[in-house]
């Protein structure tokens, strides 16, 4: 845990140094005091946790898949948008304007289940039909294949969306419109103000990541997955049908990002749109690599690091260093580069990863 702290501190120092060049020192101190005020810190914290929740939801599937079968799934971003559209479609079809917040949230969870199931089925089919023949080849081919699938899936989604005229604007407003009003409003707790959507994202992130963690640690199938990730051959020799576990994990991993997609559909910062695929994929890659490919714990920690750093930088560059408001976008990749320089295998990475 010390290292990521060091990194965050490093980022702060860098920011401070940058700031010193452009703004008078006294004002920086003032800004820093402002930043440290409880309301600000809490706001940044919640913002960061919400971002972390989204990153973690997308990245966890990626890391599960890599941990078990050593496949870096480039199509993960495309799975996310399939989830976003499927959930959006479900919401648009079922929700009516009169529904209250409770009904809407309940319906949303139905949509989450639908998105999970649909994307998991897609993932499972892709694993058995397309990726399985490639396990004997160098890992590059699996990367290439999933990269190609991204083009195909994105374009199919575009065709469907075009054909049904779903998307007049860049983000699908109708789907976004099924979001309860409470989510777009600010709410006060204990004298601090939070946006509803942030809280919901944190809630869903905790629930889903917690559920995955319980599945992995408390169920028999989860045990097989963890055993297979460490030594697939040994697990096979103990009677675990590792090939089937591969399919299941690919399905679950894809399904989880489908859930993330459902959440993104309601987040105006993302929205249901084809371009979200690449936008979601990149931070997810960063999170997975920073955490150490294939480690669940590393991924969750890295999501927190990246999410919080992103939120912190966003605050600084939006409130103080307005001339460099673009810098937060760099932070994500700067963390990637920084961690890889210090720890070439990521925060929790081990020497050898991959199941076979």
């Amino acid at each position, binding site marked *: 845990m010390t290292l990521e702290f060091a990194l965050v501190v490093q980022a702060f120092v860098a920011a401070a140094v940058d700031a010193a060049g452009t703004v008078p020192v006294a004002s920086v101190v003032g800004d820093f005091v402002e930043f440290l005020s409880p309301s600000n810190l809490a706001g940044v914290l919640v913002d960061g946790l919400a971002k972390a929740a989204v990153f973690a939801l997308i990245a966890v599937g990626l890391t599960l898949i890599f941990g078990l079968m050593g496949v*870096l799934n480039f199509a993960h971003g495309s799975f996310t948008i399939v989830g976003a559209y499927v959930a959006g479609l479900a919401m648009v079809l079922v929700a009516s304007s009169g529904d209250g917040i409770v009904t809407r949230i309940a319906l949303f969870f139905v949509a989450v289940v639908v998105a999970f199931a649909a994307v998991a089925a897609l993932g499972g089919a892709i694993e058995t039909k*397309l990726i399985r*023949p*490639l396990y004997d*080849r160098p*890992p*590059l*081919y699996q*990367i*290439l*294949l999933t*990269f*190609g*699938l*991204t*083009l*195909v899936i*994105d*374009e*199919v989604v*575009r*065709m469907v969306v*075009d*054909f049904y005229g779903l998307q007049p604007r860049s983000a699908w407003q109708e789907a976004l419109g099924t979001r309860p009003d409470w989510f777009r409003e600010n709410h006060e707790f204990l004298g601090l103000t939070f946006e509803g959507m942030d809280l919901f994202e944190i809630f869903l992130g905790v629930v889903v990541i917690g559920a995955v963690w319980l599945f992995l640690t408390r169920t028999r199938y989860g045990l097989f997955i963890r055993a297979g990730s460490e030594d697939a051959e040994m697990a096979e020799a103990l009677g675990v049908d590792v090939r089937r576990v591969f399919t299941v994990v690919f399905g679950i991993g894809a399904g989880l990002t489908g859930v993330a997609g459902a959440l993104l559909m309601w987040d105006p910062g993302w929205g249901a749109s084809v371009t979200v695929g*690449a936008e979601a994929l*990149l931070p997810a*890659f*960063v999170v997975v*690599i920073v955490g150490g*490919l294939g480690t669940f714990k590393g991924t969750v920690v890295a999501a927190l690091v990246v999410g919080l750093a992103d939120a912190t930088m966003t605050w600084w560059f939006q409130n103080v260093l307005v001339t460099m*408001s*673009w*810098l937060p*976008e*760099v932070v994500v*990749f*700067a963390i*990637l*580069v920084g961690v*890889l*320089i210090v720890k*070439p*295998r*990521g925060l929790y990475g081990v020497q050898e990863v991959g199941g076979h």
Partner: protein
Amino acid sequence: MPDDDDAKPTESGSSSEAVATDGGETPPAERAPSTTSHGLLGGTLANLLGGDSAFARYARSSTAHAVVLAVLAVYPFVHAFFTNPATFNVVPVLSGAPEYWAETFVAVLPRVETMVAIFYFGLFAASFDFISGYTGYLSFGHAAFYGVGAYGVILVANGKIPLLGSQTPFMVTILVMAIAAAVLAVLLGLVSFRLSGVYFAMITLGFSQILYVLFASWDFVGENPRDGVAVLSHPEGFEIGVPFVDALNLQIGQLQGDSVLYGLDMAKLGFDFLGFIDVTVDLGGTEVSYYMVGLVAVLGYAAMQRIIHSPFGRVMIAIRENEERARAIGYDVYKVKLAAFAMSAFFGAIAGGLFAGFRRSVSPENSLYFLVAGDALLAAVIGGFGTLAGPIFGRLFHISIEEFLSKSGSGGGLLPWLERTLGEGTMTTETVGGVTVGEGVDTFLNGHAELYVGLVFVLFVLYVPNGLLGTIRVRMGGTVAGQTAARIKRWANGAAPTGSKSTGSADAEGDDD
């Protein structure tokens, strides 16, 4: 052996051939070329190509390249010829309306302007293959170098770079930017080459995305950096050729390229009686760009090809094949990788410079974004990873599919062709669910070329893992140029088609395609 191999830049090694010949497997017939079976012209050619002189070897090994270059040299004329209805008025062989045939060729043949894009991006894809395909280190952030070249050209033209005024000759700018990219590659490589595999790919991706965000947001670049930046203070086209020598410089550009009217008037030269060979060549801006951009791309390719075959290039291949052993036999692989990365970045930046010089604008999305490197990867895999020329053909293939399947501007493609060919009646016919044929066609073809490119790509990964050129190589048993050379030699010498294995392979050692 009698020849010395320094006399000519021989592509097929004389010594390897010497070894094979000394190996005693060469049939005696090879020494005495027989002309009987080839006729007079064939006999002369056979004598020229069949021998063991440095020239003959060079000619043999360069045949494949020469053929490709020849096709490229005449392509604008071929394109003009086949897409002109007048052509089919005078060719009675084809039935049907001349317009129909011309339109069909418009739909099928890539436009000349498209070919320009294939040249510069093909060079970029080749530079990506140079590092990724030959050392095995996937440079997923290669777009950074393309972007440095592209942004460099535009920024210099806009007078944003100190010491390089907006009137700096294009050739100088592009060279400076290539060197800058090479330096950048060394800096990034110092860190990145401590990693391997996925981690290397990701850290280079990280670096390039940082550049992407920087250039997409930095207002130094231009007024609206996210949308990109265009040439503002350099109204004339960029010139390719010899700097400061007007006569040897030609402007390139989509709209403002030089046009060349070249008339060969024999009478003026005092050869009245040769009037029948008077020709007039009229090249528009696009055609001039085609030749000039093509020239730089071909030179860049040739240079990389040369490096691949040098002792240095062989070490790159050794690293790809088995880095541990390469180190164990005494190579400082870290340095070799750094140098190779720098060279690759150098050519990548030249490609980016050509791109910006031709388009006269650049945006973060089309130069620095990671999917630009993804496109290079696509081209490399389709064309053949680790074949250098393959990625160029891969890009041609990719863009041809894309053009054929999308309704773009003045060009052809399947959609307009179908619309014209099927006619209004068919297009408005309703099919299942009240959807007309036209709507159906539109849904599947209009602007969805990426789908088909993706499908083709997936099929390549699954079933043609060596790519186009790689597969041909496997079929031929060696590099295309090398095998072509071997076949010519066998033909010239009238040897049996099966030939002597050792000779063929020795020739094959020489060359990539």
